[in-house]
């Protein structure tokens, strides 16, 4: 269980995280989402005590992480796959970490097998690809068999097979009753993996709820209508209070929001306008995410909003 309460972190004049409060529960995969620069990595560093908060608290199973003498049995963390000395072999790196926490050497072989790096165990890490470093970082997180796991952008650099593997791994870790907290700036990564979401923007909480609840908050559902007489139908539907846009290229396709498919069908029928297609679409998580975080994008492009 991760509890973040009124967490604030300022670096000089910049506020990276402000009054952030949320809870991450065990037995579930929780996605930690936000645009670049939203404060996700800062929050994770505060959680494992690499930085001290300016205000508020961040606890793991009720204790600040820095109060623990040894960490690996409590929290496994992959914050940055590059945070590693490239001069050592994967095995030596993990052996030193295992030893520092009084873990048996057998754990090293176990996690190397688990992440598929057994064959590369005796190679120096400096020659690893980003994907291999991510796997090694995941191995490090798993080393102490901890009840709480934190991953910062773990998908970066993984090949498609690796992405599938890592999703399965997160699901399994959560099914085993662990707390799994995974950050990402891409909603699509979380769609198939996460049960819960914590969404932040500009260091502040935007949403903390289940994926289902989050999706329901997003854009209203829309209806796509194909008709040979788009102009007439547009006028009729607008009169009914709907928003109608014409979608190129042919111009016979309308996207209607604010009116259900049934009512659109009735209106068309009353005025004897032929309809060739009528489809109800639901907003994707991605759209919900974009909409909610649009105001808090730190490094946006195009027109300022």
């Amino acid at each position, binding site marked *: 269980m991760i509890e973040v309460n009124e967490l604030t972190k300022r670096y000089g004049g910049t506020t990276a995280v402000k009054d952030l409060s949320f809870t991450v529960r065990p037995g579930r995969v929780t996605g930690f989402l936000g645009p670049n620069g939203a404060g996700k990595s800062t929050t994770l560093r505060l959680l494992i005590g690499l930085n001290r908060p300016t205000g508020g608290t961040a606890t793991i199973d009720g204790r600040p992480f820095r109060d623990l003498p040894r960490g690996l049995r409590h929290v496994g963390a992959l914050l940055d796959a590059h945070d590693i000395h490239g*001069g*050592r072999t994967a095995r030596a790196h993990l052996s030193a970490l295992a030893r520092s926490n009084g873990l048996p050497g057998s754990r090293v072989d176990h996690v190397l097998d688990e992440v598929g790096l057994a064959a590369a165990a005796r190679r120096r890490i400096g020659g690893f690809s980003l994907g291999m470093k991510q796997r090694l970082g995941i191995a490090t997180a798993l080393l102490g068999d901890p009840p709480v796991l934190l991953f910062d952008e773990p998908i970066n650099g993984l090949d498609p097979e690796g992405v599938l593997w890592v999703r399965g791994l997160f699901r399994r870790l959560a099914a085993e009753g662990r707390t799994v907290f995974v950050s990402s700036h891409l909603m699509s990564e979380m769609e198939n993996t996460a049960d819960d979401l914590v969404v932040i923007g500009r260091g502040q909480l935007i949403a903390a709820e289940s994926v289902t609840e989050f999706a329901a908050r997003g854009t209203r559902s829309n209806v796509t209508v194909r008709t040979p007489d788009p102009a007439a139908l547009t006028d009729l539907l607008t009169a009914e209070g709907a928003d109608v846009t014409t979608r190129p290229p042919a111009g016979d396709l309308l996207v209607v929001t604010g009116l259900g498919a049934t009512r659109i069908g009735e209106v068309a029928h009353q005025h004897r306008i032929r309809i060739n297609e009528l489809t109800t679409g639901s907003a994707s998580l991605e759209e919900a995410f974009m909409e909610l975080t649009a105001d808090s994008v730190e490094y946006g492009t195009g027109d300022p909003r």
Partner: protein
Amino acid sequence: MTAPAEPRARFRDLVAAEWIKMWSLRSPPWALAVSALLVVAINTNAAVADHNNWPGYPEGIRELFVPIWAMRDAFTIGGAMVLMLAAASIGALTLVGEYSTGQIRTTFAAVPARRSVLAAKTVVVTAVTAVLGAVAAVTSFAVTQAVLSGRRIGLPFDYPGATRVLLASALLAPVCALVGMALAALIRHTATTIVTLTLLLLVLPSLVTERDHATASLLHALPQGAWAELVTVGDSPVPVTYPTTIAGSWIVYGLWSLAAVVVAVVAVHHRDPAP
């Protein structure tokens, strides 16, 4: 899921971990071997030169050669400077190597008790560089005095003061290694750390003179100045205006080591690693 039963955190596990880290890199074994060889070679070269020049030395030098010059050949200032730089670099790299690569964040995520990590590094760095210093000092003494004994001017290991000379040269290495670690903790940047170490340990002593009291005191308070006093055996052939003492020089060794450890521990504990 609850955390499994955890064994008590043991300091010796941290020392073992630092030991693994030291020897799993390519450079430390090489650095240690090459610097030991270089120190012995520099000292041997001085002894060989004295051996070869002996027939031409005037009576005045011959009278003073045993023990003053014979002991200086056992560990020359050149050898000491190489040993200082090598040990300081090894000490610095065990810490700055972690900061410059980001490894330090992985280390602290595994062991949140930062001061314990630093204490374990101190133990390993001190032990390894003390062995380096001891090997360099004993080998240099044996080889140089064997060379000089060809002229019947070599000293035995049990010559009065020889133990002190060996100890002072051997311990110069861990003193400088700890200073290296402290600067690494403050600077956190590899090249800047090594340059600063070179300036502090090697360049500064050659810039200050013994002509007035303040600068003489500064020199005596530097590791190299303390070492020079500790390895001097016999009465100086020239008058010394501002003399120092053996006891004072040991205290200088002790204070530098202590201050270095305190600085390193405090800096690492209080200053968070950069994001």
